[in-house]
């Protein structure tokens, strides 16, 4: 083993009492005395609080007076005060990375019973640190400029809010949405709980603002296909799928839609969840942004037979916006930060066949009801059943795909409240009798409980129990022609049969179907349920484990609109913190590969979780992109020839440390 340990090390060792946290268990005087006799140690002291100003002054003075070139502080966890003492030694004119810290509090005093054993263990740890410090090298934190442009993936309310926030601060935003329009799920809702303001009324102005902002570059019908680079310097490829209408030429007059050979809508409109019909050329909804129609090549006659009279083209005339030859385009973007606002999907109730979705035509999902009660929906707000009747009784079943051992164990958080909202709206529109079947009512938000009270007062029945089955098996004349809900009313302790005309399944929220692929694309973590993982559940809720990528909205877990908007704002603020700082500084704990020694054996390449290593076919060695390296050390442990080394964790440092603790 080769290396250049500083054999002229002049080390100062500082033992912290941490009040009685350490000194109550460890004999700090004996420890300081022991440390003073270790090789290279010029001075060793103990002090009540090393992190205090006088404690730090002690270090600064010793470094200057005694010409120390290494400092070891034995105190608490480096998580707490490593930065403090690095700054202290830097203030004394020393490279901060020559400093080393011993954790006597969490590793010894707090977890030990026997003071003698605790003192012995402390000695071993201090010796390890002293032997290690000799091998410490001067390092510099790495610094890279931050590209001020931001990528936002997903144009629901989270993406929209984050984009507008950044745009209003003058930042350039690329907003990528895979649907034909932005708006997301919120655009499909009728009213919002608990205030009952109209979703479209509050959302569409924001959508229009996106369209009007010169700082927002919207890519609709587009998906991110490749991400490389690192915080401050991401390179992103976006695939833009053909709309067959030139966005630059189209003014959104909609006359092409009028002139389509189909005089009426023929195909299920995705936006209305199939409850309404659309033509092959269509806009998903009147307020769509961009307000440009698109052509569905799977149903358009011109695509199928090339024999369409093309009334659309004729009507468009000189504007000539319709282009049947459009292909998938690939756009390359450079951004410094990324906000993931990819949203959620709703639970598919076909997975729970006992609820009859797909079997009984009058079983609906809650999202379908949102469209049905919506004044601009397929029935213009009329609640008409699939068989043309108007419902006289309606059952709303909570927790479909939530709080269920067989599907999702978690609570989807929004279903109780939207179920109350739908009960209110359905009652208002139909006068039907409403039953809500719930496990527990969860109304912990601002104005939520009050709304619950209001709906109770409106005469909606609440039955505490999970419906076991939706069946069509009538057992009495009153049940004829109805769907029968069998349920244990757990408050009455009896099994009830409740006949209804309409069933609403309050489906829960789930991660997007392609959440895993997206996770890998952006190098994110996922929770067990598949939601994107935040860096810290409490203190870094919008950060991810990939620096420079932030989360907003339901891709991180179910949440309502206010929480989503708040998170989107927080994510935007995090981006701005990076942009306004202008550079990123990284701990120099990175690995490096000595290309003079590397044999190009490929072992490390598969180890790197951050794709920071690739094989250079010309030099025939592995090359590490230091900017991508997070310092995990996987490649270093795996490198069979010792050619990969890691700053702050060099072999020499670790062997010295091991030697120290063994003695």
């Amino acid at each position: 083993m080769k290396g250049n340990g500083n054999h002229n090390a002049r080390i100062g060792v500082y033992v912290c009492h941490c009040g009685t946290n350490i000194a109550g268990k460890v004999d700090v005087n004996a420890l300081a005395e022991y440390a003073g006799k270790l090789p290279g140690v010029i001075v060793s002291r103990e002090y009540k609080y090393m992190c205090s100003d006088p404690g730090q002054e002690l270090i600064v003075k010793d470094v200057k007076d005694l010409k120390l070139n290494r400092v070891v502080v034995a105190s608490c966890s480096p998580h707490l005060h490593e930065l403090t003492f690095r700054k202290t030694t830097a203030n004394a004119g020393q490279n901060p990375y020559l400093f080393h810290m011993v954790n006597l509090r969490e590793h010894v005093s707090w977890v030990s019973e026997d003071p003698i054993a605790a003192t012995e263990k402390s000695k071993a740890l201090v010796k390890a640190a002293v032997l290690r410090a000799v091998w410490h090298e001067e390092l510099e934190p790495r610094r890279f400029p931050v590209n001020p442009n931001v990528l936002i993936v997903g144009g629901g309310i989270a993406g929209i809010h984050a984009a507008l926030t950044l745009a209003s601060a003058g930042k350039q935003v690329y907003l990528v949405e895979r649907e034909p329009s932005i708006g997301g799920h919120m655009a499909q809702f009728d009213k919002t709980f608990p205030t009952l303001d109209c979703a479209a009324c509050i959302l569409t102005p924001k959508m229009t603002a996106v369209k009007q902002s010169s700082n927002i570059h919207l890519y609709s019908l587009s998906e991110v296909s490749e991400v490389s680079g690192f915080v401050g310097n991401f390179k992103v490829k976006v695939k833009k799928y053909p709309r067959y209408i030139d966005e630059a030429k189209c003014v959104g007059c909609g006359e092409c839609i009028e002139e389509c050979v189909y005089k009426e809508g023929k195909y299920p409109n995705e936006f209305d969840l199939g409850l309404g019909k659309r033509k092959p050329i269509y806009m998903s909804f009147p307020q769509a942004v961009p307000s440009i129609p698109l052509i569905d090549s799977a149903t358009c006659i011109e695509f199928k037979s090339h024999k369409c009279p093309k009334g659309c083209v004729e009507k468009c005339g000189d504007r000539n916006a319709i282009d049947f030859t459009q292909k998938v385009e690939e756009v390359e973007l450079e951004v410094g930060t990324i906000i993931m606002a990819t949203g959620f999907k709703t639970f598919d109730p076909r997975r729970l066949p006992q609820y009859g979705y797909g079997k009984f035509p009058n079983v609906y999902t809650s999202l379908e009801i949102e469209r049905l009660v919506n004044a601009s929906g397929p029935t213009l707000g009329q609640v008409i059943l699939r068989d043309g009747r108007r419902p006289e009784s309606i059952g709303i079943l909570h927790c479909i795909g939530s709080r269920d051992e067989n599907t999702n164990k978690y609570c989807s958080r929004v279903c109780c409240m939207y179920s109350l909202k739908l009960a209110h709206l359905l009652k208002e529109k139909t006068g039907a009798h409403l039953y809500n079947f719930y496990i527990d009512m969860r109304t912990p938000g601002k104005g939520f409980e009050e709304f619950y009270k209001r709906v109770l007062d409106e005469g909606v029945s609440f039955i505490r129990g999970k419906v076991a089955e939706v069946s069509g098996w009538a057992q009495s004349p009153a049940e004829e022609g109805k769907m029968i809900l069998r349920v244990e009313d757990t408050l009455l302790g009896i099994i009830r049969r409740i006949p209804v005309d309409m069933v609403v399944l309050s489906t829960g929220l789930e991660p997007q179907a392609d959440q895993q692929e997206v996770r890998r694309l952006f190098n994110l973590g996922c929770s067990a349920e598949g939601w994107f993982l935040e860096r810290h559940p409490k203190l870094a809720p919008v950060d991810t484990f990939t620096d420079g990528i932030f989360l907003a909205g339901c891709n991180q877990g179910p949440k309502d609109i206010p929480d989503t908007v708040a998170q989107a704002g927080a994510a935007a603020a995090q981006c701005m913190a990076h942009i306004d700082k202008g550079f990123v500084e990284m701990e120099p704990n990175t690995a490096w590969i000595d290309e003079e020694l590397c044999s190009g054996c490929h072992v490390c390449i598969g180890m790197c979780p951050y794709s920071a290593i690739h094989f250079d076919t010309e030099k025939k060695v592995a090359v590490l992109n230091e900017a991508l390296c997070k310092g995990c050390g996987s490649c270093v442990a795996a490198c069979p020839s010792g050619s990969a080394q890691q700053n702050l964790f060099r072999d020499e440092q670790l062997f010295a440390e091991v030697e120290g603790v063994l003695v």
Partner: protein
Amino acid sequence: MAKPKVAFYWCARCGGCEESVVDLAEGVLKVVEAVDIVFWPVALDFKRSDVEAMADGEIAVAFINGAIRNSEQEAMAKLLRKKAGLVIAYGACAYQGGIPGLANLTDKEAILQYVYQQSPSTSNGNGTRPQPHLKVPEGDLELPEFYEAVKTLDQVIDVDYYLPGCPPTAKITFQAIEAILSGKLPEKGAVLAGDRALCYECDLNSTKPEKLLVTDLKRPHQVIIDREKCLLAQGILCLGPVTRGGCEAQCVKGGMPCTGCFGPLGRVRDYGGKALSAIASIVDSTDEKVVAKVFEALPDPAGTFYRYSVPASLLAGKRKAA
């Protein structure tokens, strides 16, 4: 001008290193032309007393192969150290302990008990064991002392350079001799072979996938080896990535995986540890049961990863019962 004097000696070894000198073929003639061989028990009839009679430092270079197993070997090593300007640890045994070094996975008592008592072919009713000293009417007899553990050459004497290999190849041997004769020697303590792991010079390295991950490990006798494809990528445990190059991948060219006889690279403290770490890393699973299953293919991990290097390793040898 007098030709430089050269000595060859063998300690605990198989004799292959001696063979390898002969393997220089015609090249040996050049060597003989350039030097005087003053001591070479396998080939020339010089005695220990001839060496003892030489002045200190009179021998230019002594090539010592074999590990140190007993006191005689240590004494000879020390004698040659005194008489030679340069001592070269020749071959895997002198360098890292080699195959004899595997004995350190057990201990002296167990070895003697097996060899002199328990082995099926042994008939030794009196339980006679070799004794270092024995008085007989004819006088005192002496046998070298069998050590508790095998040592590398540099654990008993100062070594100037190392020639790795089991045995060293003719090419690196010849290069070393040329370097000595021309005086173009690297820093003391250097291993006179490649600076990079074997993969760098192996023709099959270009057939590796970008990410080298294996889902099972196989031993050479269990599969038909594809000679055109990296052995490790086929799941055959080839230690090329861990092992110092210089041999030109002769084993791999012959369709056999590298077993590591050239030892570790200069930055590696413990060959077997590194080898184990590297191979464990490329097993493509995080499921403990799957990983355990993969490693069932290696019934002798110590002998596989530390085949040539137990005495030089961080392993303390067989743990003594407390």
